[in-house]
């Protein structure tokens, strides 16, 4: 079956096809014996068509699918999912493109899969993102409820991403904030690992349901564990061996990047296990800390990227001062200590003045 499929599609070699399915099976935590099932589902002519919507985004998620990883996997994804509408890669344009969107959702009403890339701006009636004269909000409200399931790819579609970073000028939100009633799964990341997306899709095709998720709607097979708990530098963390700054002795020795701002302890993703680009690397393996791109609001809460914790805004003259949380804490403690000192001094002073009199009354 898969052989036939491969002969029909010269774009993917049989080897690449099997490799992709095996990788997805591994990512999903399935046994080897399940691989033929995945292969069958991926090559089945009855697999659901996919409509891919682009909203407020940089197309980085599509780009990473297309080329950042092993080329076979990129092509495999696009072939497997029988892509009927995808603004970046489709040949059609203009009215033709809109027609194909309309045709697909009419013909496969309730059966197609909708992939959303990018956040949806909601401020001022959603005018900050328009395609074919319709706002992103309108398109999602039209297409979303008619899909069998929605896959939000990337942190933008999942939680708003960089557009939603404070002060969120366009009121950007993720799909789950607008769409109710349709099963939604989030595959966040900036961009997400293609394998996590592939695994989600293959799981749906094979088992006819979305994989189990955590409370943030992310598939557990890919986002069930912290980066920190699978990191190859973790022994250095436990042993207290840290890079104090980039390029120092510790950094050259491959020590833990915690003190130069690694957010692995607060980030859920399979990056250390799946890695990127088919060459077995991921950010931490090449010496840069995780910036926590799979978490909601990471542009706000994970910054500064090279410090451990966010800054605090200390209200004051001129609209607030931003301080390191630790230094703010020290200042407050200092002020408190000074207040205590003054209070005690006043007490002693009063005693000196009123002295014995008071004592006798007691």
């Amino acid at each position: 079956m898969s052989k036939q499929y491969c002969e029909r599609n010269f774009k993917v070699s049989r080897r690449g096809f099997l490799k992709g399915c095996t990788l997805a099976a591994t990512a999903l935590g399935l046994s080897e014996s399940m691989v033929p099932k995945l292969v069958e589902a991926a090559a089945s002519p009855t697999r659901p068509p996919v409509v891919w919507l682009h909203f407020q985004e940089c197309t980085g998620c599509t780009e990473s699918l297309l080329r950042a990883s092993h080329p076979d996997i990129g092509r495999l994804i696009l072939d497997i999912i029988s892509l009927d509408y995808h603004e970046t890669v489709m040949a059609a344009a203009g009215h033709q493109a809109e027609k194909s969107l309309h045709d697909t959702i009419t013909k496969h009403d309730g059966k197609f899969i909708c992939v959303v890339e990018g956040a949806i701006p909601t401020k001022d009636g959603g005018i900050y993102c328009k395609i074919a004269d319709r706002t992103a909000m309108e398109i999602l409200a039209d297409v979303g409820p008619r899909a069998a399931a929605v896959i939000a790819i990337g942190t933008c579609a999942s939680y708003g991403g960089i557009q939603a970073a404070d002060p969120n000028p366009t009121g950007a939100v993720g799909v789950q904030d607008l769409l109710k009633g349709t099963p939604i799964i989030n595959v966040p990341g900036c961009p997400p690992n293609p394998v996590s997306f592939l695994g989600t899709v293959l799981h749906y095709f094979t088992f006819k349901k979305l994989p189990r998720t955590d409370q943030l709607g992310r598939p557990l097979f890919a986002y069930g564990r912290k980066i920190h708990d699978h990191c190859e530098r973790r022994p250095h963390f436990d042993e207290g061996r840290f890079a104090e700054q980039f390029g120092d002795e510790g950094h050259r020795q491959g020590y833990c990047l915690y003190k130069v701002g690694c957010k692995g302890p607060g980030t859920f993703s399979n990056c250390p296990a799946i890695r990127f680009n088919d060459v077995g690397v991921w950010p931490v393996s090449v010496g840069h800390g995780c910036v926590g791109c799979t978490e909601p609001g990471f542009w706000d809460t994970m910054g500064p990227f090279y410090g451990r914790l966010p800054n605090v805004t200390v209200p004051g003259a001129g609209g607030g001062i931003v301080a390191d949380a630790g230094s703010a804490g020290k200042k407050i403690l200092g002020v408190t200590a000074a207040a205590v000192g003054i209070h005690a001094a006043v007490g002693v002073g009063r005693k000196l003045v009123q002295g014995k009199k008071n004592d006798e009354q007691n």
Partner: protein
Amino acid sequence: MQYERKYTWSILLRLYHWALALSVLALSVTGFYIHFPWTNTMLEGGSTFPVATMRYIHFIAAFVFTGAVLARLYLLIFGNRQERLWDFLPITPRNIKNFVATLGIYSYLRDSHEERLGHNALAGSAYGLTFLAAAVQVLTGFYMLYPESATWQQIGLFFGPQQTARFIHYLLTWYFMVFALIHIYLCVWNDVMARDGLISSIFNGYKFRQSKS
């Protein structure tokens, strides 16, 4: 002048207090170490395990802290007269009056105040606030300790993702240290001023009051 000895704090309250005090001390020290591990063991091949050990102590102390908070919760409702929350939170006219009066005394504007066996309403309010801070500290802490538990994730997401919870947890640590500083100072101050044996009462449970006669 005659003083009489009055039983004020139950054994459970005193145990709670010292469990809380010692665990806060241990949690602050190890917490700051985890936040910024200041020793950098450049020694490879040895196993000194400093961060793992500090985290271990932190987690044990966290359970002691949680136990203490739960004990206090029980006492807030079922404790003796001085230990119940309506005795010291400014929610009754009597306590609101006491709150204002205590402010006056602490700022040296008044000399005498209503004699109370338990907490004054100002201290009581601070303890109430600290109790809430402790609850947040416990919830964010367990959220970080059990990152793979769906239940803890559900509860923890109230505060935001792990990193936000970590931030709140860190800021509240400073709150506890500021609280400890003021608390110790004011206890000494009261012990000097009021002579009711405030400090020894948290060891033996007895306070002194001037007899009416």
